């Protein structure tokens, strides 16, 4: 089959690989009908996440049709089922899964020792996301083996386009969780840093959850226009001082809820000098992440407010103003999304016409164009916000 394969920094190739095979009775194989490139794939593209190996297949936003089912998965899946595959692999039985904390499932990381060493305690297995999370082949391919397939799938009905359903795999529930874990209330002002695909879904989630005022921060005109389309007030950090503008919009008190949909790769510019220093440290392997957004959120957030982190961080961050955070009594919430916890509800909202996630797709291409699309997405060229690929 064909697949997009990681060979090294900025080196994704459209390779011919052997077909995946069932290994365990809970496995299933799906024929991929659509997949997408995620913003967090760019961290792998940039080789910022440790434990990627040449030959790893990329991709964790995938949907398709079941073509083979292991014996133990036959109770819930059958050939021909149309499924979206959550990026988190979950057993559905461990303590964490039973609590709905699917992204920290205790059983599905097949490289638990490595995960334990890196994180203290291993997190769930993830598709196409380094050997720290199991080293599972990803879904930017023609076929995908789904481990723990009896629980790791979302069945979706026929009659709705892939475009509307694909993002149940990641960015829609991820954006939703970012808003939910901020505990958005109708009187809240919510500031969201980053108007990439996850930021866009977070903005829509905050609107659906009824936040009084949603403020979106970015510097790319096309992303800001997409944020404004949903009813967000926008701040272009190239043109305005974020802290001053947020204080102006909140009567000098700061937003109640601040959401980080940027994560490790904050935009580097001399207008934000800390980002230049972070980038230099990152190159010298003295720091893993560029946490400019985190610093700014802590500074500007209203005392007793909530910081919700959904943008991916990788490791060690420097100069985090914990004194500000502690003395202001901020609450921090963060996680990789517990995808299946939200997918049932979100699928219903898609069917009900409350939200149509396909608005975010700006580029559709074949899987063969994947390597070029990685470049386009990373360079933010051609107005690219989200790439959908079809094998």
């Amino acid at each position, binding site marked *: 089959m*064909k*697949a997009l*394969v990681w*060979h090294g920094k*900025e*080196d*994704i190739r*459209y*390779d*011919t*690989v*052997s077909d*995946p*095979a069932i*290994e365990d009775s809970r496995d299933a194989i799906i024929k991929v009908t659509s997949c997408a490139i995620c913003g967090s794939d760019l961290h792998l*593209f*940039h080789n910022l996440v440790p434990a990627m*190996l*040449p*030959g*790893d297949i990329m991709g964790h936003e995938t949907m398709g049709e079941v073509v083979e089912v292991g014996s133990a998965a036959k109770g819930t899946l059958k050939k021909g089922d149309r499924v979206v595959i959550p990026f988190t692999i979950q057993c559905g039985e461990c303590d964490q899964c039973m609590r*709905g904390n699917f992204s920290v499932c205790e059983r599905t990381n097949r490289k638990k020792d490595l995960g334990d060493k890196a994180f203290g305690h291993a997190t769930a297995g993830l598709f196409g996301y380094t050997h720290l999370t199991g*080293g599972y082949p990803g879904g930017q*391919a023609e076929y995908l*083996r789904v481990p723990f397939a009896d629980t790791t799938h979302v069945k979706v009905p026929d009659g709705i386009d892939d475009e509307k359903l694909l993002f149940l795999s990641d960015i829609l529930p991820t954006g939703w969780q970012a808003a*939910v*874990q901020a*505990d958005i209330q*109708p009187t809240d002002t919510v500031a969201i840093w980053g108007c990439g695909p996850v930021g*866009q879904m977070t903005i829509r*989630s905050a*609107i*659906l*959850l*009824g936040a009084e005022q949603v403020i979106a921060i970015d510097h790319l*005109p*096309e*992303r800001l*226009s*997409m944020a404004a*389309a*949903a*009813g967000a007030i926008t701040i272009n950090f190239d043109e305005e001082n974020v802290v001053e503008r947020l204080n102006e919009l909140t009567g000098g008190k700061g937003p109640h809820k601040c959401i980080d949909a940027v994560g490790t790769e904050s935009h*580097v510019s001399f207008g934000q000098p800390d980002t230049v220093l972070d980038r230099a440290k990152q*190159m010298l392997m003295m720091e893993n992440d560029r946490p400019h957004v985190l610093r700014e959120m802590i500074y500007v957030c209203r005392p007793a407010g*909530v910081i919700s982190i959904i943008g991916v961080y990788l490791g060690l961050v420097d100069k985090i103003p914990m004194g500000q955070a502690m003395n202001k009594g901020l609450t921090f*919430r963060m996680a990789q999304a517990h995808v299946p916890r939200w997918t049932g509800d979100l699928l219903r909202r898609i069917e009900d016409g*409350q*939200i149509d996630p396909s*608005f975010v797709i*700006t580029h559709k291409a074949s899987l063969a164009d994947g*390597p*070029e699309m990685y*470049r386009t997405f*990373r*360079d*933010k*060229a*051609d*107005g690219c916000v989200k790439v959908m690929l079809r094998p």
Partner: protein
Amino acid sequence: MTLTNLTSIARSEGDPSIEHKGPSSLTGPDRLARALGWFSIGLGVAELIAPGRIARALGLEDKKGLIRAYGARELASAIPTLSIDKPVGLAARIGGDLLDLGTLATALHRDNPKRGNAAIATALVAGITLLDLVAYAGVKAAHRRLPGDDRDYSDRSGFPRGAQPSRGLARQDFDIPTDYRAEGTVADALPTLAT
């Protein structure tokens, strides 16, 4: 055995393995920049560990310390050249090339018995400078945003019912789960004090 085959030991039997490699996301200028970055490392290490030999070969015996400093400079420019911020590294390399050419110019006088070596080195550095310029222009062109890339997506609300009617729609049938509640009111927490 290729690296991608070697890494198969980290995978299970049912995982796909590479049979044939296809086209890459790396552009020609990216590859050239990478090669120049590794060249910087090689030259930098040589200048750091054997500045005396290089100085003698060029007839620049009094510039041993300077050559060692140039070695450190090469390594410093290699880091961004090999990173995703290649233009920064390549610009640093071009600046370094000019310094190298200036230093070599001082060895091209008639009294230098190693003038021939210095002339060859000057020609090599000039060639490398040309490659640096080509790589710099190439990566800038390959990864730039064009003026027309600023699109207007103001018609993409994602709300089939419209943005304003969608505000608060989920509140009708969704409560924030208790494990995600972050704050309550004083009235909730301390009803007696609130009254």
